């Protein structure tokens, strides 16, 4: 490890700094629209959020669209119905938005903690299948409940924010940036902690981990809850930027997007979701422009190839290599 050149001491931190510098640079230069930049952070953010439970603990969740949706609906309904929340979100150039998004994230986290106590007893494919069920269950609940909240104004489960609840885009951007940083740095902190080591042990062999003293049930629930919290926050800010929310947010496709990003990038690493998110964002854009209609088919094929030939993802492959006598495994987190 001591042989590593200074700038290579922590390529992960370097990557984070570069990405943040890129976002800030684009923001100042104004070449990318705020919407595009926010979508970029949103993609990387949800990938990093899912990584906490799926990457570290090895639990493949197809149910994270639920947490996106709970965050989104909580935020939108809060500012719609609660005047203090509406005033709060307009304060502090984005800090207010961030604060309301925290409330929305907590709602998602509370649901995750409750559901997690049950579904996290399932393992492997059974857990994955149960979480697919969550997407559909949430969809039907929202379709049933939301329209009754304000039958005259709401069109089905769709809630569109009236002009009095709209926040300047610059504020939304700041809140998104703050949330993005928070989820990435949380990933980094988890990776370097005993908690993270425990999660990785659970991924490898849950029974062996438990006998070694890892409180597996507690750790899985914390990871699931933390993951849902950030997913909910991101869903909330994303919805706010879109000016409202509808039941489409619960679509299974959103969950799959998140999974695809971390699979491409590399599960259980800090840099994996970042790299995977960047590639996915870029591909998604590129394919949508050049091959509209076929974009998802092509993306599907690419993902299939990654799973077949590089199941560890890009960072996983890099971690197997040696650079100037230094095993990258020791550096790339």
């Amino acid at each position, binding site marked *: 490890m001591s042989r590593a050149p200074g700038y290579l001491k922590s390529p992960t931190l370097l990557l984070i700094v570069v990405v943040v510098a890129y976002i800030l640079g684009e923001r100042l230069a104004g070449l990318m629209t705020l919407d595009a930049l926010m979508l970029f952070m949103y993609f990387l953010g949800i990938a990093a959020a899912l990584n906490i439970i799926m990457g570290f603990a090895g639990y493949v969740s197809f149910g994270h669209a639920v947490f996106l949706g709970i965050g989104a609906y909580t935020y939108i309904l809060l500012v719609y119905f609660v005047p203090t929340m509406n005033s709060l979100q307009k304060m502090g150039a984005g800090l207010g938005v961030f604060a309301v998004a925290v409330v929305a994230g907590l709602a998602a986290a509370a649901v995750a903690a409750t559901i997690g106590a049950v579904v996290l007893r399932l393992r492997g494919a059974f857990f994955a299948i149960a979480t697919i069920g969550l997407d559909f269950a949430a969809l039907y609940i929202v379709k049933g409940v939301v329209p009754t909240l304000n039958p005259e104004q709401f069109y089905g489960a769709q809630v569109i924010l009236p002009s009095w609840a709209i926040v300047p885009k610059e504020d939304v951007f700041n809140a998104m940036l703050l949330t993005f940083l928070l989820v990435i740095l949380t990933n980094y902190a988890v990776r370097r902690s*005993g908690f993270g080591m425990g999660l990785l042990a659970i991924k490898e062999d849950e029974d062996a981990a438990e006998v070694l003293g890892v409180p597996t049930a507690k750790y899985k629930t914390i990871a699931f809850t933390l993951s849902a919290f950030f997913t909910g926050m991101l869903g909330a800010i994303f919805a706010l930027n879109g000016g409202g929310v509808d039941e489409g947010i619960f679509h299974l496709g959103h969950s799959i997007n998140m999974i695809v990003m971390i699979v491409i990038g590399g599960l259980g690493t800090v840099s994996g979701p970042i790299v995977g998110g960047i590639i996915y964002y870029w591909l998604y854009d590129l394919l949508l422009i050049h091959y509209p209609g076929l974009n998802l088919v092509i993306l599907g094929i690419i993902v299939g190839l990654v799973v077949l030939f590089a199941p560890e993802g890009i960072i996983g492959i890099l971690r197997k290599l040696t650079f100037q006598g230094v095993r990258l495994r*020791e550096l790339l987190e």
Partner: protein
Amino acid sequence: MVNVILDLKNVTKRFGGLVAVDEVSFSVRRGEILGLIGPNGAGKTTLFNVITGVYKPEGGRVIFKGVDITGMPAHRIAKMGIAKTHQIVKPFNDMTVLENAMIGALFGKRSGKIGMGEAREVARRMVEFVGLGEKANHLASQLTLHEKKLLEIARALSAEPELLLLDEALAGLNPREIEESLGLIKRVNEEMGVTIIMVEHVMHAVMNIAERIVVLHYGRKISEGSPEEVANDPEVITAYLGDPSLALRFVRRRGA
């Protein structure tokens, strides 16, 4: 009175209609090496799983250091100072040898009170103690079976246990590796002061190293005593060893 570290009282574990462990009682003295033997399916591994909290027994009590730990979750029992190695090795394959041992250190006796740096030091010490120092940065998946068995021991020792359960730590090893491992087990017992219960099929090994032996047969304890007493016990001979002269040969080899 002898200092008892573990006390099993009428422990019973059933799987459906099968009684895997049937009213088993015995005590383990602090500092000793106790052999636990019996034919396949005698309930040895099941008993280990009851002690470590993987299974909840249907009856009886498990008392460790005077505390009733019956039915406690496995991770809490680990924290109290009981560690186990697995019969079928279970290394965390995608972690290095050192990281494997760190898991033991982070969640063992000092769980919650030990930092990452200190855990790494404990882990390194134990990895070196079992002789895997040069492989500390290798992935566990790259080790040979013998090395994986040593890693199991290093990982368990990193938890700084008072009681170590070895489940067939010698199975599948060649004679030279068995000798080395026996030396290691003795050093763990003598130098670290760890009490050991070892389930073993390699007869001469367990007869050699254990001070006392408990024999299980169809889930019941049929004998307990020194290796000589057990080997001469008619019930053990019929149930397990079969041939009395064979049993006596094992005992004689203790001197050799």
